[in-house]
């Protein structure tokens, strides 16, 4: 097994150490999660799969469950000089030409309309939510509007860990919101809001699965997987309808509802920020 590609951040981290063992956290057919001795989350994915944050892509696509067992300690060929590196950072995306406000509005409209039409019955878009969750969502919206971090944290405490999946639906949703915010404030620093991602991360500690905690943590650092990054690029940079559609489509494929839940978060946050920038209701709303 060879590692073909690695997340830039991860490579930097590992370069400071000697070759240390990883403990297998959870194994799937085409992905395997590990924890380093310091408890840092690392993920291996099969050939051709999209690279996740702190991820490594290997050169084959045989069933990983035959190679790794939960709880095992293994050494991985992370020091191979041939390994290529990829930046998975929304804050370091460089765009040749930025998208106009009008086009951003159209893209958001498209995203909303698609989620309404297509949604899986179990996704957040389609399913009925319990009263407590609805309440927390309302609180979240209000607290983001007011940029009140304490209230955001309280709202997040009432949302994180809710839903099915290895990364519960609400966690995907919040991740989507965080990533959109991160990308937006990088591209439009004049937005001038306080970064709320850290309080969401704090709210999530111990309240959800390890995989999800790390997903939120990475998002709070502006880090996400390859296809999400590609989508964000297509959203903020000038892109054709076709390119945008394809990038959107790829994110929706993630997990069974994860992609949709995450995208819902992105739509909500993008709409909120666009409205804010345009002062009140957008004329394209």
């Amino acid at each position, binding site marked *: 097994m060879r590692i073909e590609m690695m997340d830039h951040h991860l490579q930097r981290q590992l370069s400071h150490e000697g070759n240390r063992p990883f403990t297998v956290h959870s194994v799937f057919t085409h992905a395997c999660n590990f924890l380093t001795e310091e408890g840092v989350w690392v993920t291996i994915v099969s050939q051709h799969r999209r690279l996740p944050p702190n991820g490594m892509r290997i050169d084959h696509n045989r069933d990983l469950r035959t190679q790794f067992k939960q709880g095992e300690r293994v050494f991985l060929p992370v020091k191979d000089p041939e390994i290529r590196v990829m930046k998975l950072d929304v804050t370091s995306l460089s765009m040749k030409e930025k998208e106009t406000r009008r*086009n951003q509005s*159209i893209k958001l409209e498209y995203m909303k309309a698609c989620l309404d039409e297509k949604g899986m019955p179990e996704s957040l878009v389609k399913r009925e939510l319990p009263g407590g969750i609805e309440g927390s969502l309302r609180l979240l919206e209000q607290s983001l509007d007011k940029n009140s971090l304490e209230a955001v944290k309280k709202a997040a405490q009432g949302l994180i860990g809710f839903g099915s999946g290895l990364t519960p639906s609400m966690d995907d949703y919040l991740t989507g919101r965080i990533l959109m915010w991160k990308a937006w404030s990088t591209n439009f620093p004049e937005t001038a809001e306080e970064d709320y991602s850290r309080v969401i991360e704090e709210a999530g500690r111990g309240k959800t699965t390890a995989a999800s905690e790390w997903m939120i943590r990475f998002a709070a650092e502006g880090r996400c997987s390859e296809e999400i990054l590609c989508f964000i690029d297509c959203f903020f940079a000038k892109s054709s*309808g076709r390119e*945008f559609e394809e990038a959107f489509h790829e994110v929706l494929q993630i997990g069974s509802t994860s992609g949709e839940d995450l995208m819902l978060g992105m739509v909500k946050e993008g709409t909120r920020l666009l409205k804010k920038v345009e002062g009140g209701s957008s004329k394209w709303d």
Partner: protein
Amino acid sequence: MSKINELFDSELRVINVGLESFSKELKMQKKAVVHVEWKPVAGGNKKLADILNQLS
């Protein structure tokens, strides 16, 4: 040499988009094929695709 003649001189490597049976049969013949799990974008809805057409 024209591109078509170049194709004739190379190994055929197919991207199959649509019917799975075509991919399966190519695999049966040990031919190089990648199957694209194609789904219509925008839920197959022209109305949605038209939204994107407004992009300038």
